[in-house]
């Protein structure tokens, strides 16, 4: 044992000596990207869960950005931009290292992400320190904009916009008097439901909390059917919402099912199938109509799938950064300044991107729409009034 230990330690030490020797002749790092003024070889970071349990949610978002970059590169073949992926697996404990890696890469002057709120809490302080401008396409926790991060931008409305809007829709449009609320305990889902509850008030006849990865909703279904609710608002993601809905229907519940943008994706329709008919999903986004561009068709062509929720936002955000590069904004500070004065409507999402000082979208630009599932597609139902 002692002998073996010595051998191993010795081996590593020898190796270390060789490495030290080699370190003596190290060449310098490449200087920060874009000092020559060209946008060539710049990178846009994408930060989010690309593997792990939540990858299904984030991968389409990444693909949105990927599509924008690919289209840009097709037009600028001599001076391309790459999308650098940082796979956080959606967890806050993996985020800091990747964030550090991102800020250490001088070629990365813009960041799309982090995709989730939890990892944003851990990664954004690091981006802030390095002044790397970031726009999240999907993290909707309201408190993110109150931390004093100058680099933080949000490409969508936060839970404060969506939750109450969903509640107003239930109250004023559906005129439902018995509402059941369920959330998945995620920061997103619980936040949405908490905001909605404030407006729904006494209309709530029951509530339950489910949990991520849950597959079996028998007890919750039983509560819902027992409560006599005619509408159910679900705060959470497709992964649980779709099986929950199916189990509700198979137990004969006929009420209206509503959810936030967490279920506003093609996969919800595909998983829930016929049961999705009539489901309402709210989204702090305007409908992407054919007039606004060919995003949906392009996405389908490239990835052989329907764009998931926020894929359009990521596409627009990537295009904002690419526009910055094209106009010669090639340092982090330049891009940050560019965002500060930006005000244009995105081609895919139809949202006008104009940011306030705290990084939130200009409230007048935040619209919340209700989409209804009809014939296996999300059909825009109406814009939900602001009060």
């Amino acid at each position, binding site marked *: *044992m*002692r*002998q073996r*230990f*010595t*051998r*191993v*330690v*010795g081996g*590593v*030490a020898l*190796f*270390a000596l060789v*490495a*030290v020797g*080699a*370190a003596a002749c*190290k060449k310098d790092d490449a200087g920060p990207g874009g000092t020559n003024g060209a946008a060539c070889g710049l990178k846009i970071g994408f930060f989010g869960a*690309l*593997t792990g349990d939540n*990858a299904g949610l984030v991968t389409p978002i990444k693909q949105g950005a990927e599509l924008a970059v690919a289209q840009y590169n097709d037009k600028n073949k001599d001076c391309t931009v790459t999308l650098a*992926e940082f*796979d956080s697996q*959606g*967890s*806050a*404990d993996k985020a*800091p*290292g*990747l964030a*550090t*890696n991102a800020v*250490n890469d001088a070629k990365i002057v813009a960041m799309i992400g982090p995709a989730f*709120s*939890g990892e944003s*809490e*851990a990664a954004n*302080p*690091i981006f802030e*320190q390095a002044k790397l401008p970031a726009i999240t396409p999907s993290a909707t*926790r309201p408190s993110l904009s109150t*931390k004093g991060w100058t680099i933080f931008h949000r490409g969508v409305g936060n839970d404060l916009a969506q939750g109450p809007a969903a509640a107003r829709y239930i109250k004023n449009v559906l005129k439902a008097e018995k509402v059941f609320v369920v959330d998945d*305990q*995620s*920061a997103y889902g*619980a*936040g949405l439901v908490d905001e909605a509850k404030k407006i729904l008030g006494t209309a709530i006849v029951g509530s339950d*909390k489910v*949990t991520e990865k849950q597959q079996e909703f028998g007890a919750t279904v039983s509560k819902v059917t027992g409560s006599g609710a005619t509408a159910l608002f679900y705060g959470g993601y497709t992964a649980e919402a779709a099986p929950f809905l199916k189990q509700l229907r198979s137990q004969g519940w006929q009420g209206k099912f509503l959810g936030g943008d967490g279920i506003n994706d093609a996969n919800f329709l595909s998983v829930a199938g016929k049961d999705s008919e009539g489901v309402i999903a709210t989204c702090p986004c305007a409908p992407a109509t054919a007039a606004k561009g060919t995003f949906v068709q392009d996405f389908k062509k490239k*990835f*052989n799938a329907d764009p998931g929720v926020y894929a359009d936002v990521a596409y627009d955000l990537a295009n904002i950064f690419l526009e910055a590069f094209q106009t010669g904004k090639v340092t982090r500070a330049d891009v940050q300044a560019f965002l500060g004065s930006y005000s244009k409507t995105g081609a895919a999402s139809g949202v006008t991107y104009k940011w306030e000082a705290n990084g939130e979208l200009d409230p007048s630009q935040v619209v919340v729409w209700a989409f209804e599932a009809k014939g296996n597609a999300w059909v825009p139902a109406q814009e939900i009034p602001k009060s």
Partner: protein
Amino acid sequence: MSAVTDLWHRVTGFFNQSKPARIGLIVVFVAFLYVLPNREFYEYLNIPGVWIPLYTTGNDMAFVLFTCTWTILLALGLNVVVGYAGLLDLGFFGFFAVGAYTVALMTSPESKLITEYNWFESPYPWLVTVPIAIALALLSGVLLGWPSLRVRGDYLAIVTLGFAEVIRIIAKNQDWILNGDRGIPQVGHPPGTWPDGTPIFQFDAKPYYWLALTMVIVAVFLIRNLVRSRVGRAWVAIREDEDAAELMGVPTFRFKLWAFAIGAAVGGISGSLWAGYNNFVNSATFSVENSILVLAAVLLGGAGNQAGAILGGFLVVYVPEWLRSVGDVFGWPKTVRVFDINLDVSPTSLRYAFFGVLLIVVMIFRPQGLWPNRRRAAEFKDRRQAVVVGEGVG
């Protein structure tokens, strides 16, 4: 070639015979570990174009090393439980959670203990909370051990697994103090400033790595002394035959509880270090998978040997992180189209599959772990010869 091996034997022979030389060697090795996260240093672990870089290009090296180090701390703690006392614990990450949450709750200005329950006025500094975190982890080890150590073997595994799951679900419930998935941001950092006045411990993982590495070294020495004492001998006795140990007058329950408590305390240190770095603690980190990963670390390295636990803890973190970048090095395609479906084959996304293969392969060829302790290695050698005819040879 033989000249080289000859030289090698002479060198190792020299080190084996001379204690100062051996200590010197260890000192050099430790010093090497301390300088490792410096970019200038590790990038030259590779000769460009010849080897695959040994450092992690897909993730910040200092961060990866820090993650390795706190995982190693966990592995060292679990090694006491599994390796020395022979108790199968599948919920070890729970103690990490206890440590992390204690620190987060006491050092964050957004902690509910301050904002909602008014237990205290302002956050405590990180350093003050660490002993409390360790104490609470130790206490929770005892509290878990008290009822669960009455069951044995695989039943203990499921009980401890349940314990970790219960902790996670309690943490997940945001109405309680731990604030669920929304978590606790702005966790305090360890104290200290550089000469220019900027804090040492902020977002850069390097100082944390140094701190954690120091903790590992301290833990190794403390556990080593413990194992060589009466306690350690009692553990070995319990591991090899609990009933016999009991008959020989070893108070097995008490010593098993000891193992649990000490393991838990080390896990608590790891958690408090991690919370101090990560700045944000939420329930998502404390999944059962992580407990299993730590157990894999201990057994991969070689249960019952601290060097093995260290090696295992290093590998389970480092290998997947390193695999992130392998695809870029070799220029592997990221997706393959089969039957109109895009299959994601990038090493980044398949890294846990590769890691799984690694676990299987290592266990097949070295079931005792990569670096087992001497006594166990001998036992394994004997076992291997004791195979029933036909299963072994044919």
